C-alpha cells in the first residue's frame, strides 16, 4: 500500500496539472508533492531496514536499496520542483514560454518523477527497463521546452542515442531472462529480482557474460558513461535548470541503480572478475574523457554536465570493486552528488536569468554583485570537488579505501590524478565566475529568500551527510548488502 502511495502522489499531481490551468500555485503544489514523496521515502527506509516490502500484487517490491533511491529521488525533486513556479513565472514574464507550455512542463516533470519511482520500486527488472526508457520520452519534451533550434537538436540527439543505447540493455535483459528460463528447466522465470537472485548460481556463464556486457553499454548510455555519453552535455545544457537538476542529479543514478542490481546477479553467476573488468573499463574511460573535457570548457552548464560524467565514472569504478564498503560509498556519493548537482544547476539557472548567458568568459564578479547567489554557487562548487566536510569527500575517500582493500591501487592513482585535474579546472572556472568586479549595477532578477534558503538548506544537508554517520550509515549498509552477495 505504501509503495503504491509513493507512486500515486506524483501521478495525482500529474492529473491535477492536466485539469487545472497554469498558475504559480500549480508550481508550489508540485513542490509539496515532492516533499510528500521524500517523507514517505524516509518512512519506507525505516520500514524496510529489516525486511523488504511488497505491494500491488507483488508487482512492486522495496528493499532498503529501493527505499534509499526513493529518498534520493525525493530530495532532488523537492529542490527541482520548488523552483518550478519561480522558473516558469520568470519565463512567462520574459516571453520565453506561455502559460500552456508552463502547464505541460509541470505535467511532464511529474510524469518524469513517476517513471523514476516506478523504476526503483518495481519487482521486475523488465519493468525497470520500461520505466527508464519511459523517462527518456517524458524528458524529451522537457529538454526541448525552450523551443530553440539548439534545444530541438539536443532533444533529437538525446532520444536517438538513448533509445539506441537502451535497446542494447533490453537485449541484455532478454539474454539474462533466457539464462534464467534455462536454469529453471524452462518452467518458471519472471525476471523478478528475487527469482533471478535465486536462479543466479545456475545461469549459463557464456550467455550471462554477453548479457551483462550489453547491459553495461546499454544502461551506461543513460548513466552517461563513455562511449555513449555524447548526448549528455547537449541535453543538460539546453534543458531548463530544474530539469537539468533532476536529470543530472537522479536520472543518471536511477539508470545506475539498474546496473547495481544486475551486477549482483552477475557476480553470483560469474564471480567478481568479469563485472569488475567491465565496469572498470567504462568507469575509468568516463573519468579520463570527462576530465579532459572539463579543462577547456567554456560553458557553465556544459561544465556541470561533464562533471556529472566524471562522477558517474567514479561511481562505476566504485561499483566495480563490489565490496559492501564500496557500494555503501557509491550510494552516499549518489545522494551527495544528486543534491550538490541540483544546487549547482538551479543556481546556474539563476545566473542565466541574471546574465542572459552561461558562457564562463562573459560572467565575472558574481560574488561582489550577488553575494548570496555567488556564495551558494561557490560553496556548491567546493562540495562538487569534494572539499571536506561535504559528503562527497567522505564518499570519495571511502571508495578509495575500498579500492585499495581490493588491490586496485592503480585505480586509486588514476582517480586521484583525474580528481586533482578536475579540482584545478573547476576552481579556475569558479574563480573567474565569482571573483573580479564589473560595475553594471542593475540586474533583473534577485534570488528571493525562500529560494535561497532552499539552496542553503540543501548544502547544509550535504555537510550533515559528511559529518554525521547517524542515521544514514545503517541505511547505506543495509542497502549495500542488498546488492553484495
Amino acid at each position, binding site marked *: 500500500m505504501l509503495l503504491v502511495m509513493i507512486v500515486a502522489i506524483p501521478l495525482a499531481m500529474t492529473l491535477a496539472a492536466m485539469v487545472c490551468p497554469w498558475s504559480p500555485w500549480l508550481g508550489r503544489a508540485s513542490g509539496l508533492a515532492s516533499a510528500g514523496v521524500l517523507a514517505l521515502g524516509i518512512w519506507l527506509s525505516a520500514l524496510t531496514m529489516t525486511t523488504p516490502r511488497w505491494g500491488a500484487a507483488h*508487482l512492486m517490491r522495496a528493499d532498503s536499496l529501493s527505499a534509499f533511491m526513493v529518498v534520493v529521488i525525493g530530495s532532488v525533486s523537492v529542490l527541482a520542483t520548488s523552483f518550478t513556479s519561480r522558473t516558469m513565472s520568470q519565463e512567462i514574464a520574459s516571453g520565453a514560454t506561455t502559460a500552456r507550455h508552463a502547464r505541460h512542463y509541470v505535467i511532464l516533470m511529474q510524469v518524469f518523477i513517476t517513471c523514476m519511482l516506478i523504476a526503483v520500486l518495481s519487482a*521486475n527488472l*523488465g*519493468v525497470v*527497463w*520500461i520505466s527508464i*526508457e*519511459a523517462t*527518456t*520520452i517524458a524528458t*524529451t*519534451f522537457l529538454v*526541448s521546452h525552450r*523551443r530553440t*533550434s*539548439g534545444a*530541438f*537538436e*539536443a*532533444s*533529437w*540527439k538525446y*532520444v*536517438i542515442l538513448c*533509445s*539506441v543505447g537502451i*535497446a542494447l540493455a*533490453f*537485449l541484455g*535483459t*532478454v*539474454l539474462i*531472462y*533466457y*539464462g534464467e*528460463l*534455462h536454469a529453471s528447466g*524452462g518452467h518458471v*522465470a*519472471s*525476471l523478478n529480482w528475487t527469482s533471478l537472485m535465486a536462479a543466479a548460481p545456475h545461469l*549459463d556463464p*557464456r*550467455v550471462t557474460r*554477453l548479457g551483462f556486457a550489453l547491459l553495461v553499454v546499454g544502461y551506461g548510455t543513460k548513466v552517461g558513461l563513455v562511449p555513449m555519453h555524447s548526448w549528455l*552535455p*547537449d541535453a543538460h*545544457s*539546453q534543458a531548463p535548470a530544474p530539469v537539468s537538476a533532476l536529470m543530472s542529479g537522479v536520472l543518471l543514478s536511477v539508470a545506475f541503480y539498474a546496473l547495481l542490481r544486475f551486477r549482483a546477479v552477475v557476480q553470483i553467476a560469474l564471480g567478481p572478475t568479469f563485472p569488475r573488468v567491465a565496469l572498470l573499463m567504462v568507469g575509468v574511460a568516463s573519468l579520463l574523457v570527462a576530465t579532459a*573535457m572539463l579543462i*577547456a*570548457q567554456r560553458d557553465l552548464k*556544459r561544465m556541470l554536465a561533464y562533471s556529472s560524467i566524471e562522477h558517474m565514472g567514479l561511481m562505476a569504478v566504485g561499483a566495480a570493486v563490489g565490496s559492501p564498503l564500496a557500494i555503501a560509498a557509491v550510494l552516499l556519493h549518489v545522494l551527495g552528488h544528486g543534491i550538490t548537482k541540483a544546487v549547482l544547476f538551479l543556481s546556474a539557472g539563476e545566473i542565466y536569468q541574471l546574465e542572459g548567458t552561461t558562457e564562463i568568459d562573459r560572467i565575472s564578479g558574481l560574488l561582489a554583485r550577488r553575494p548570496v547567489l555567488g556564495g551558494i554557487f561557490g560553496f556548491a562548487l567546493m562540495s562538487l570537488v569534494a572539499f571536506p566536510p561535504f559528503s562527497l569527500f567522505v564518499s570519495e575517500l571511502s571508495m578509495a579505501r575500498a579500492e585499495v582493500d581490493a588491490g586496485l591501487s592503480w585505480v586509486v592513482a588514476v582517480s586521484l590524478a583525474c580528481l586533482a585535474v578536475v579540482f584545478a579546472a573547476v576552481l579556475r572556472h569558479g574563480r573567474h565566475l565569482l571573483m573580479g568586479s564589473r560595475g553594471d549595477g542593475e540586474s533583473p532578477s534577485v534570488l528571493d529568500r525562500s529560494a535561497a534558503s532552499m539552496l542553503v538548506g540543501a548544502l547544509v544537508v550535504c555537510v550533515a551527510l559528511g559529518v554525521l554517520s547517524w542515521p544514514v550509515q545503517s541505511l547505506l549498509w543495509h542497502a549495500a548488502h542488498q546488492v553484495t552477495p
Partner: protein
Amino acid sequence: MNTAYVSALDVTAGLVLFAAVMTLWRRGVRTIVSILGVQGLSLSAVALVLAIHEHDTALLVTGGLVLVLKGIVIPGLLLRASRLDPKSRETRPLVNVPASLVAAAVLIVLSYVVSARITSLAPSDATRLVPLGMATILVGYFMLVTRRRAVSKIVGLILVDNGIGLVAYLLTSGVPFIVELGSSIDVLLVVVVLQFLMVSMGRHSDVDVLTERRELRD
C-alpha cells in the same frame, strides 16, 4: 505438423531479415517505410506461429499486439511524416548501396558467430534461427550510422527493436507479457516523439536534416 511448423518459422523469420536488408537496398523513403511494415507483419507472424505451436495464449496476444503496432500503426505514422515531402530519397548515404549490401553480408556472418554461444545452450528449431534476429539488429545499427535522413534514422531504430523482438520470441517465446506490453508502448511513444521533433524542426525539405546540424559542440 512439425515440418509445417518448422518451415513456417523459417519463412517468417527469414522474411524479417530479408526486409531489413531490403531497407538498405532501396532509397525512396516511402518504399523503406513500406518494407518496414512488411517486416512488422512477418515479426508478428513469427510470434503467432510460435504461439500456436506451443499453445501459449500470452504470446498469441503479443503477436496480435505486434501485428497492429509494428505492422500498421508505426509504419502508418512514418508514412504520414514522409508524405510531407513525397519525393524524399536517401540521396547521400555515408556508405553507398552496393557497399551497404556487402556490409550486411558481413554482419550476417558475424551474427552467426556471435549467436553460436547463445544457441548452443538450448538447441531447437526456434533457437536455430536466432542469428537472423541478431543480424536484423546489426543491420539496424548499420542503418542508423550510415543513413542521414531523419526518417531513415527512425527506421534504423525500429529495425533494432524488431530484431530484439525476434531474438526474444525465438529464445524464450517472448519476455513476460507485462514487459512486452510496456516495451511496445515505449517504442510507439519514441516514434511519436521523434516524429514530433521532426515536424517541429520543419526541416523536411532539406536533404541532410537534423543529423548534420552542429550548433551544439565543445
